């Protein structure tokens, strides 16, 4: 009798999973954002899971250090990691504050002197932090990819996961084909994302995968999405000006003054004094 219990339990779990898979999302009490098994099972939690995976990838980049502690202590954890504009510092330098006391960074001595000695924190900071700051570089950058993969599998609509994975492949791994594949997959999953349209446009600009026609088409698509949206969020705004900048570069190369004027109008409509608007104006004045 006892030996049959595990088999019965396995059968019960299998039946339950089949039932979940067979059930249409619309019939569930809460509407899941996708029809896949993970969406049905986790609902919105899969977005948090996805961000947790990106967070883990970030900690891998910093050699295993959890950068969240800097945010907890009022630091800008990503001051050198501007994901929206992809202005990552290629040397991997970041703001390791000397006053962080989370016990994970090992730079809390200054604060300890002020607050008084905490032996537990002292031990933790020495066990859970490297003596030397290090970042993934060269072949080792590939270690971040499983986390990005899990992030986009958990939530295929996490634009930050796609764009950071693309950035890592393109600029840290210097694998342009992989970067293009990631950008295309991301765009396929999110055809209304300005940021990913821009990412794909940039992927087509790479030396090994250069295709000006496709690149321009993607930047135009980004502008089209921006028009349909009206008000833009910070990341979308960055993507918008990035698309304008690249398109103006292509137009200037072709000496297409009409296109530059159109782009200038677009730029002025959102921010007359934006540096991108000024640069388009300069390009236009060079043509005249």
């Amino acid at each position, binding site marked *: 009798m006892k030996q049959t219990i595990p088999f019965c339990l396995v059968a019960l779990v299998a039946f339950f999973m089949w039932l979940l898979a067979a059930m249409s999302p619309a019939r569930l009490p809460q509407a899941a954002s996708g029809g896949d098994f993970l969406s049905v099972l986790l609902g919105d939690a899969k977005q948090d899971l996805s961000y947790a995976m990106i967070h883990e990838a970030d900690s891998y980049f910093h050699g295993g250090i959890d950068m969240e502690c800097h945010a907890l202590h009022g630091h800008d954890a990503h001051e050198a990691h501007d994901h929206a504009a992809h202005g990552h510092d290629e040397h991997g330098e970041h703001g390791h504050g000397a006053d962080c006391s989370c016990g994970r960074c090992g730079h809390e001595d200054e604060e300890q002197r002020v607050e008084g000695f905490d032996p537990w924190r002292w031990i933790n900071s020495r*066990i859970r932090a490297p*003596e030397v700051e290090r970042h993934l570089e060269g*072949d080792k950058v*590939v270690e971040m*990819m499983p986390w990005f*993969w899990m992030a986009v599998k958990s939530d295929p609509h996490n634009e930050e996961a796609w764009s950071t994975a693309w950035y890592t492949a393109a600029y840290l791994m210097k694998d342009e084909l992989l970067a293009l594949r990631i950008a295309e997959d991301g765009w396929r999953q999110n055809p209304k994302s300005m940021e990913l349209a821009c990412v794909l446009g940039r992927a087509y600009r790479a030396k090994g995968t250069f295709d000006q026609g496709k690149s321009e088409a993607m930047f135009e698509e980004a502008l089209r999405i921006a028009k349909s949206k009206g008000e833009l969020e910070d990341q979308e705004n960055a993507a918008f000006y990035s698309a304008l900048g690249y398109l103006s570069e292509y137009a200037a190369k072709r000496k297409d003054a009409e296109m530059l004027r159109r782009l200038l109008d677009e730029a002025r409509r959102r921010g007359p004094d934006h540096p991108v608007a000024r640069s388009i104006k300069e390009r236009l004045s060079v043509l005249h």
Partner: protein
Amino acid sequence: MNCHFRRIGALVRLSLLELWRRNDMFALLVLALVLLVPLSLARPFGVSGAVRYFDEAALLLIWGYSLFISLGIGGRLFTSEFDSRTIYPLLAKPVSRGELLLGKYLGGVVASLSALAFFYALWMVSAALRGGEWLSACLLQAFVLHAMFAAFAVAMALCASFLMTSSAGMTILAVLLPAMFFFGRRLPEYAGNVSGALRPLVYAFYWLAPHVEFFDMRQRLVHGWGGVDPVVFLAVVGYGLFYTVAALWLAHVIFKRKKL
């Protein structure tokens, strides 16, 4: 003295046999294979060469298993003797209660460490097969600290089995130890975010609760940081020994006063 060691040795052998006769170890091994083999074959975005995520998952599993085994062994050391009433013939032999407690505890620790060594050996084989570093000073330190944790967990479970029912004790420890493992170092931050009477309570908990996260050197192993400073290493071993001895002493006091 010789006779004293022989008696304790016999009890150690018994505990070791008990662990390996049970099917727990093999069930855990099969579970590890089911989880890790697909993980090792995964090629995220069609890229190969990433190993750290696998090492991290494998080491986390080893931590989970060692907790499960240590608590199980510690909680069962005396409960099974009381339940089956075999404690009476045991105490009828020329063995003092202190010897019995120490012998059974050492047996539990040896059994727990044998399981830990087995899992670490498997991890080393997997690292060697993947062409990575399979033996280092950092690994030895990590193993010693993990062993210290196992010894401490067995002592805590043994002590808890005298204070309350074995299952209640194991349940409490199964919540407390992982909670400290993951969140122990952040308790001062949580204390800063609560107000009123709760704040000194959280601080008191921070100072008194066992910081099992000290024994965790996974990050150093996975990311190749190298070994920890010997002074810190000895401090953590001393910390573990203090809690272990305290738990055993408490268990001894309760067992000595227990009316059978």
